């Protein structure tokens, strides 16, 4: 069995099983976790409370004007590489073909971007990731709140991005070896995903919504 066969075969299969198991484990335990009962009469219920949740999803996804000078740069870099990652993963032709095959989707309307644009986006994304990493290492507060989880996740992400770039540009070795390393990096990401901060992908919007919803309900109606 070649490295590429291993990465596309048993390792990808095992990684998927672990990913699904881990994600559902965490989501189920979070959903079923006991919450303190709030005996106070809610300020609003139903539609307005739900709107409050949705507003919080939007408002907390954007820096507060007062803090833009302090946090704007970090948020811009964060948004930059997240958008880059989404564009590469969802619009790169080899990735689209991979998703369609993996999930058995037949979606002829799924557009793809030319290789040149994906290549530029990849390089820019890695550059933004590098800025974010250096900032995390240099910023006194960020450095102190960073732990193994953050650094390990970044390491996997770098491996994924760099092997992808190497495969596209044909550098660093034979294509099938680099492709295998790229898929192995993806498998590692799937395996690590449920157990680290990558779970923010599932939690970020629901948690903002729940916070907004709860805060809208709290307090006396005026």
């Amino acid at each position, binding site marked *: 069995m*070649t490295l*590429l*066969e291993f990465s*596309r*075969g*048993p390792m*990808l*299969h095992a990684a*998927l*099983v*672990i990913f*699904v*198991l*881990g*994600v*559902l*484990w*965490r*989501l*189920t*335990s*979070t*959903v*079923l*976790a*006991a919450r303190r009962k709030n005996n106070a009469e809610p300020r609003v219920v139903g539609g307005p409370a739900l709107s409050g949740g949705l507003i919080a999803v939007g408002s907390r996804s954007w820096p507060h004007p007062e803090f833009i000078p302090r946090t704007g740069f970090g948020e811009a870099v964060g948004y930059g590489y997240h958008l880059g990652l989404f564009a590469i993963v969802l619009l790169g*032709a*080899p990735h689209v*073909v*991979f998703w369609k*095959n*993996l999930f058995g989707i037949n979606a*002829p309307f799924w557009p*793809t*971007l*030319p*290789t*040149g*644009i994906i290549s530029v986006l990849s390089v820019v994304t890695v550059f933004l990731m590098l800025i974010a990493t250096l900032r995390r290492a240099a910023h006194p507060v960020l450095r102190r709140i960073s732990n193994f989880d953050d650094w390990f996740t970044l390491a996997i992400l770098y491996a994924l991005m760099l092997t992808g770039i190497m495969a596209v540009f*044909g550098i660093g070795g034979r*294509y*099938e070896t680099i*492709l295998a390393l790229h*898929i192995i990096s993806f498998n590692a990401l799937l395996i690590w995903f449920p157990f680290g901060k990558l779970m923010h992908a599932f939690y970020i919007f629901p948690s903002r919504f729940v916070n907004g919803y709860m805060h809208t309900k709290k307090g006396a109606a005026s």
Partner: protein
Amino acid sequence: MSVRSPDSRPTIGQILDENGVGRRRFLKYCAGITALMAMPPGSTTAFAQQLRAARRPTIIYMPFQECTGCIESLTRSFAPTIESLIFDTVSLDYNHTLQAAAGHAAEAARLEAMEANWDNYVLICDGSIPVNDGGIYGASAGESFVHQLEHAAEGAAAIVAVGVCASYGGVGAAYPNPTGAKGVAEIIKNKPIINVPGCPPIPEVMTGTLVSFLASGVPALDKHLRPQAFFGNTIHDRCYRRRFYDRGLFAESFDDEGARNGWCLYKLGCRGPTTYNACATIKWNGGTSWPVESGHGCLGCSEPDFWDQGGFYEPVTSKLFRDTGQVAAGAAAGVAIGAASAIAANARKKKLAAKAEEEVSS
């Protein structure tokens, strides 16, 4: 098929002279071969001299678990090219597909030729070799293929494995490989082996490899023992449709606008990105066309285990597993573990709250 000792054989140059092959034509051929093999232009003269001086080699061509496609490819040239002429000049002392003799006479001729040229002949193998259960799944003349190979390899100067089956097992070794089919290099470890894979290999690659071996010995090989000169680049790298890949223009089916416009066949399962061969440059049928030019993706037939790389119409990154409920089982287990951990945590939380209340009230 007369058998002569190696030293008494004429040189290739003498044979070509006898056949009226002029110097210009011969040098043109050598220039073509050296160019194909990416050798520097200045090396053509030396290559030609070495090839002319090489003695007419004895070839023992052993077919094993094969379909005769490779020998068909090798012998079916559209015009009597100098490659075929050079191939005709070799002393093909045994090939049971081509020779007139059959049965015991043919086997006796093989053994006689091997004995007379022991340590000097070139062994060409075609087809995979089954090794399970003592190799009983493939036999000829009452002898298993694996035993025949081991014996013939013992006296060979070098071995050329022609076709993907002889190189890596091919279709015979495809999952579940009931006969335990293997390529030559998996069985013979003490001889120089050159793999010329393909299903079948390109005729010019076969003759080019052979000619290069006659002139200057074993050429530079890659990790799969293929001549780097012919197998150094991927099909994708040399494909004339590559520009469409780079522009993101793909055929989505074999009869859509993309297919009619000759766009990239990546999405239709083309294995060009992971396949090393010279189809895109040398082409087939005297340079007429090749599979991708005919509108079909590359099957990757020069790669080890190419039959087991997923469906021929699935992309090179396609999953290589058949999920029989493991992911669903993982999902069910995840929900169950999540629910159990939540119940346990809630119970613990309740217990701690009760304890705290007790402490406050006491």
